[in-house]
């Protein structure tokens, strides 16, 4: 059995890196786009300093729409878009497109709900000293939600690992793809177990790291 594991090692290695690429790109896009969307959802809410029913409404509907589509369907649905962007629909980079699309609203909602935990008084105190909206976002909201933003990224990363396995089954590559190819089509239990263990270790590691950082930045 150990022989089999060693035999599969190079392929496992490639799959592992593909998974990291998919999850990494998804996370990056979540930070670049999901974070601002989440903040926007928060500050345009009723009673906040950039209250705007229209922006909040439209953004909210789009976010809910994407969130309500099961990932496997979103994946297929986005094939034309992926093809248009990258000229192909297979491989980790292609899979990253739909992972990113799923990650944006997912993370945005987490950002929004952690921002909601800030005491409104803290924001008012900033308004009372004459701070501009941008300054309040940058110097109050972001630092105050930092622990939440980091645990949110942890949750997003772990969900993306799950999604990436689904993306793998239809040509995305990665650990999910490996598990399906050997475990499902060839009944190779050793590979199956190995991938499961790799995934468990990966998820545990991310969770541990996320918790650690979130705790370190929490000054409450």
């Amino acid at each position, binding site marked *: 059995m150990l022989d089999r594991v060693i035999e599969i090692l190079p392929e496992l290695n490639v799959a592992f890196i593909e998974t990291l690429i998919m999850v990494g790109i998804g996370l990056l896009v979540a930070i670049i786009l999901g974070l601002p969307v989440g903040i926007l959802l928060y500050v345009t809410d009723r009673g906040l300093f950039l209250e705007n029913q229209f922006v909040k409404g439209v953004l909210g509907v789009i976010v809910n729409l994407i969130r309500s589509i099961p990932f496997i369907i979103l994946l297929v649905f986005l094939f034309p878009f992926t093809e248009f962007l990258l000229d192909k629909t297979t491989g980790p980079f292609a899979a990253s497109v739909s992972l990113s699309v799923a990650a944006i609203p997912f993370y945005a909602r987490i950002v929004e709900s952690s921002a909601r935990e800030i*005491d409104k*008084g*803290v924001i*008012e*105190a*900033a*308004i*009372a*000293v*004459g*701070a*501009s909206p941008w*300054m309040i976002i940058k*110097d*109050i909201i972001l*630092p*105050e939600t*930092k622990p939440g933003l980091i645990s949110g990224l942890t949750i997003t990363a772990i969900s993306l690992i799950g999604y990436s396995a689904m993306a793998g089954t239809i040509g995305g590559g990665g650990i999910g793809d490996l598990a399906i190819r050997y475990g499902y089509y060839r009944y190779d239990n050793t590979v199956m177990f190995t991938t499961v263990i790799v995934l468990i270790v990966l998820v545990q590691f991310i969770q541990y790291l996320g918790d650690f950082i979130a705790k370190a*930045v929490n*000054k*409450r």
Partner: protein
Amino acid sequence: MITIENVNKVYETKTSRVVGVDDVSLEIKKGEIYGIVGYSGAGKSTLLRCMNILERPTSGKIFIDEVDLLSLSNKELRKARQSIGMIFQGFFLTSSKTVFDNVAFALKAAGVPKSERKDRVLELLDLVGLGDKANQYPAKLSGGQKQRVSIARALANNPKVLLCDEATSALDPSTTKSILALLKKINKEFGITIVIITHEMEVVKEICDKCAVMQDGQVIEQGSSYEIFANPTKPLTKQFIQTVLNFELPEQLLESCQGTLVQLQFRGSIAGDPVVSDVLQKFPVQGNILHGKVEYIKDTPLGIFIMELLGDQQDVNNAIDYLQQRLKQVEVIQHA
């Protein structure tokens, strides 16, 4: 310094209509410490929040230093707010920032360059007595210390006005005293006009030059704190005054009293005015002090005594008339 003209604030939703502030007009002069008292829900916070437009009045006008706040653009309003400091019952410090950065943020908001912030922050922290806490996070501070940080933050941009929303209500009595002393000092040293909202008459007694009493969104009584204490006219005001000038005589004592019980009020200094000995010499009555108290209303004494007068009814009545002439405030609380 602060002029409030016919300010109304109505909260309207589809199902309800709540009047927060009901046609309030006030004039607060430069350098005054002005108290606004009332029970919870009276509209005090709403009124105060109108003074820096955290809450936009439904109608009416607010002038600070002759500037019509409601006519300002967002940008001008932000600038104006830099000269209106505000502190809150809940402190509302940014928990992710150190004490230093909490104060520095106010300077940053006002566009003070980074190089000039450090000295100013340290100066402010010294002023509020937290010079050694610059690098602490708020979570490590006591309530009183947090309020000191928030005072430093509010003073950062040299405001003309400081608005205090129940600033001492979350603090224990001795911490309250020290925060009030700090506010007094700020008022004296920098001439900052201070508006204080509270439900504790003690606070008014301690530091307010003037005060207003609010009920159901309206100001029902206003004047110098001393007059309000010495001569409250509205029942609610009397209730509030009672919390400080509490004169409960034991039931038993009242029953066993033979003579007429009068309550005498002495204003200002009582030392040079021997009213009591005069009355006892002039009339053949006996006087018996049952209870007495001198309260200092922002440093001016207000004395209240309860005296039992014994003697012939006519003589007692004459003595009371005489007291009335000398003291103005004499009240018979129990007849013989």
